[in-house]
């Protein structure tokens, strides 16, 4: 079965400190500057964009946790603040900009209170006005839906009752709204560096208060962006149309978009998707090209394929609570034993080798130099000997129903064998892989894992994946049980900065140092590549319009030749 793995999502936004290089002309759908060679043309409107799309979990912004949906939500469901729709290759794509609110908010009370004012006269696609209370009701709705996103709001004052029993959540005292004035005031328990990013993800995107408090997909809830999802047939198709109530040019960060309508066929069959686009029946392939046909398509359509690096890191976790990986030498040995170029090769070349934990598009990223762990089997073998664990049984965990993940696990097993461990492999279904390795009773020693950001701030990486204070018995995300006291303290400090300091250069340096400390000094994990995805267009399309905004391209900005 050629199937994409259920992968966690990401929405892209900010980063890039105070030097927000606001290239003047990029908003508003019109007037893009074509004076520089690198700037993408903005194109003109056209009637219908036919696309092939991957299948997704939900089409309800309160429930979906998949990139395939979030890519659509960027043009349909907006939050108080939004991420910039700018190319990561040419612009600062990581900036948070005002969305439904007039500004990115005013911060007071020791960075614990955020105040926003809604723009006047905004309406949803069903004609209802956008009200301040919709924000609060959206968050309450998330809780009532048992949304996977509710963990993002734990720092809001008065959220505890809702967390204890999400289904019964009725009110959140820390959110105060005034529909007449259009103001929203949010009180936090403590300062939070990434709170604006949290407000930009779809779980925080406003839906009308009248939206039923259950999975709403046919059609999905009324939208407030330039488009709305007119119909959705799960795993089969969807239609996106222009929102008749959208105020053109009102929100400078959000272009009005080119296609009047987007019609999508949904499939997970990568080969089928590519062929449909190559034949001209569809105009854009949201799925990545199948690796075995990559050279074929690249040679045949060199000008219709774009490659983008994604803010994702693929790494091997090593469980520090179980031998042999409680030994630093053993963890270093693994880092020396994997040839990152070969791991990229396993993906057909769709990856950039890395030794860092953070992805390169982050301003907090500082490439680790010199290369900390060049491929060196002899050295790895020696380290295994020194650690005194040679011959020990080591079980490699990986996902068995995704061929590349499977091959990756088998590669690691092969390498561990070569450096002197008795390596076994355990392949699990993608559907419950992370629940099983995230359960301490499994005692998973080492294995494959990857991470796609939710929002582009390092808290979504270090604090979720490597913070020793957040190790749990079940549904643990710190699969390696990495617990470095000094790093934990630093992470916690960096997570609670006022937003004015969150992107300062000293903060960025502190994050970069954390990356270095954990990856080089502690060898806490073995990161090996940042993913690359493809965008494949039919020859009706002008590929130059396609820009990649941190984690995805924006179908609203596509244009025809």
């Amino acid at each position, binding site marked *: 079965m050629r199937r994409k793995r259920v992968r966690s999502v990401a929405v892209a936004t900010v980063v890039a400190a105070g030097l927000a290089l606001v290239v003047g002309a990029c908003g508003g759908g019109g007037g893009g500057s074509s004076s520089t060679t690198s700037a993408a043309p903005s194109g003109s409107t056209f009637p219908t964009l036919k696309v092939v799309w991957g299948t997704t979990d939900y089409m309800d912004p309160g429930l979906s946790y998949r990139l395939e949906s979030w890519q659509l939500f960027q043009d349909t469901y907006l939050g108080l603040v939004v991420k910039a729709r700018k190319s990561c290759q040419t612009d600062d794509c990581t900036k948070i900009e005002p969305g439904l609110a007039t500004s990115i908010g005013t911060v007071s009370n020791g960075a614990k209170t955020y105040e926003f004012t809604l723009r006047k006269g905004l309406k949803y696609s069903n004609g209802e006005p956008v009200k301040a209370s919709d924000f609060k009701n959206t968050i309450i709705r998330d809780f009532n839906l048992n949304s996977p996103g509710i963990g993002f709001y734990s720092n809001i004052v008065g959220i505890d009752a809702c967390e204890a029993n999400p289904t019964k959540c009725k009110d959140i005292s820390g959110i105060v709204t005034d529909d007449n004035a259009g103001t929203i005031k949010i009180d936090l328990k403590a300062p939070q560096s990434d709170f604006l990013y949290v407000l930009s993800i779809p779980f925080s995107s406003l839906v009308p208060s009248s939206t039923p408090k259950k999975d709403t997909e046919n059609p999905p809830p009324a939208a407030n962006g330039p488009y709305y999802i007119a119909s959705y047939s799960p795993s089969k198709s969807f239609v996106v149309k222009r929102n008749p109530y959208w105020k053109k040019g009102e929100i400078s960060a959000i272009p009005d978009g080119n296609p009047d309508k987007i019609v999508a066929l949904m499939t997970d069959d990568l080969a089928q998707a590519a062929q449909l686009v190559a034949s001209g029946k569809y105009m854009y392939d949201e799925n990545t090209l199948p690796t075995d046909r990559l050279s074929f398509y690249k040679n045949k359509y060199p000008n219709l394929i774009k*490659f983008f690096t994604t803010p994702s890191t693929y790494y091997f976790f090593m469980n520090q609570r179980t031998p042999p990986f409680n030994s630093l030498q053993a963890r270093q040995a693994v880092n020396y034993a994997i040839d990152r170029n070969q791991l990229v090769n396993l993906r057909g070349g769709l990856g950039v080798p890395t030794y860092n934990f953070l992805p390169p598009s982050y301003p907090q990223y500082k490439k680790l130099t010199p290369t900390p762990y060049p491929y060196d089997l002899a050295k790895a073998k020696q380290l295994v000997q020194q650690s005194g664990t040679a011959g020990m049984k080591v079980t490699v965990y990986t996902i068995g129903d995704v061929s590349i993940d499977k091959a990756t696990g088998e590669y690691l097993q092969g390498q561990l064998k070569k450096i002197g461990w008795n390596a076994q492999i355990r392949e699990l279904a993608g559907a419950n892989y992370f629940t099983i390795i995230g359960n301490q009773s499994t005692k998973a020693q080492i294995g494959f894992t990857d991470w796609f950001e939710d929002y582009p701030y390092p808290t979504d990486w270090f604090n979720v994946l490597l913070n020793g204070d957040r190790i749990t018995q079940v549904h643990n995300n710190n699969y390696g049980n990495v617990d470095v006291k000094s790093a934990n303290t630093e992470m916690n400090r960096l997570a609670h900065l006022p937003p004015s300091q969150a992107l300062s250069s000293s903060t960025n340096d502190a994050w970069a140092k954390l990356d270095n400390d954990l990856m080089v000094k502690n060898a806490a994990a073995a990161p090996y590549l940042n993913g690359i995805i493809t965008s494949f267009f039919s020859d009706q399309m002008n590929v130059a319009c396609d820009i990649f905004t941190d984690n995805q391209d924006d179908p609203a900005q596509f244009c025809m030749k």
Partner: protein
Amino acid sequence: MLRRRRAGSAHPFTVATTGQEEFTLDTASELAAEEGGTRIEGRSPWALAARRLRRNHVALVFLGIFLLVLVACLLAPVYAGHVSHLAKNDTNPGGVITVNGQQVNVISQGHTTIGKDGTVHVFPGGVPIGPQWGAAGGSYVLGADDLGRDTATRLLYGGRNSLFIGGFSALICTFFSVVFALLAGYFRGVPDWIISRFFDLIWAFPVVLLGIALGTALSINGFNHWFIHVSGQSLWIPTAVISFVFIPYIGRPLRGQVLALREREFIEAATSQGAGPLRIMFTELLPNIASSVLVLFTLIVANTILTEAALSFLGAGVQPPNPSWGTMIADGQNKLANDPWLSLFPGIMLAITVLSLNIFGDGLRDALDPRAKVRIEH
């Protein structure tokens, strides 16, 4: 394997080879006519069947082919040790081999460059080397897979696993079917009712669906109940699953035969001589269904091997990295465009094996049960 019933030419549910025609019923003269007038008196039915089989050259040739495959698979370690010099799970992704004096990468190397303007250029790689036949000495005769493992070596080891699962699941399945059929047919009444409903129940499942569901569930954590402890990777899991789903396909026709035999005089005679149930079942009834069991067994092996491939294809069969022909086909599917051989070879081996078993099974049926015919049975 999508096919629901393939036990012989018979339809086990409403159509089946029945016991009334077992070969012992043939009169000497009829048999003599069939044997071309040669002397047959004093020979056992088994000897006669063996003689008939010997004359079926096609069946024997295919038996030979099957044995050849079997022996080749059993010699896998020899091949790995002396020809390919790569063990079954030995990866060699960065390896270089010498082909006709030239250095060639086992896996083609791709790379990525990122331009000054941020444009990403990917130069695809990761294509494994194709079949070298003899050009690279003994290594990579049939090419490499995406981790640089030797396809020929894995093909032989994979055959071991496929044949192991096919053979043992057919054995287990036949064993339980015979026991159930004897119990149901001999005791009739309540035991028959229970066993028949059990058959109905498994029968009602779509076979592949039941197989995959069971295979998936069991391979996650193995089976650890009562005194049985089997790990999730064990070959016994697919073996048990496959033998379980096929039980009614053999059990039903056999039960019909036993029920028919049970009515016959020789059983009555045995009972009147004071023979107990066990003795009647095993010394009177069993020999009389033995020929059908043998025929059904041969034909079910072909099916179990195919089912193993189907389950492995959907990820519920042999657990990696150990190969089986089914997992090799499944692994190759994502490399079809670059290297179709990866899926082709195991498929061809599978087809040859199953074909030879089917043809030999046909010959065996002709020899053992020459007048077996399709008949409606209730």
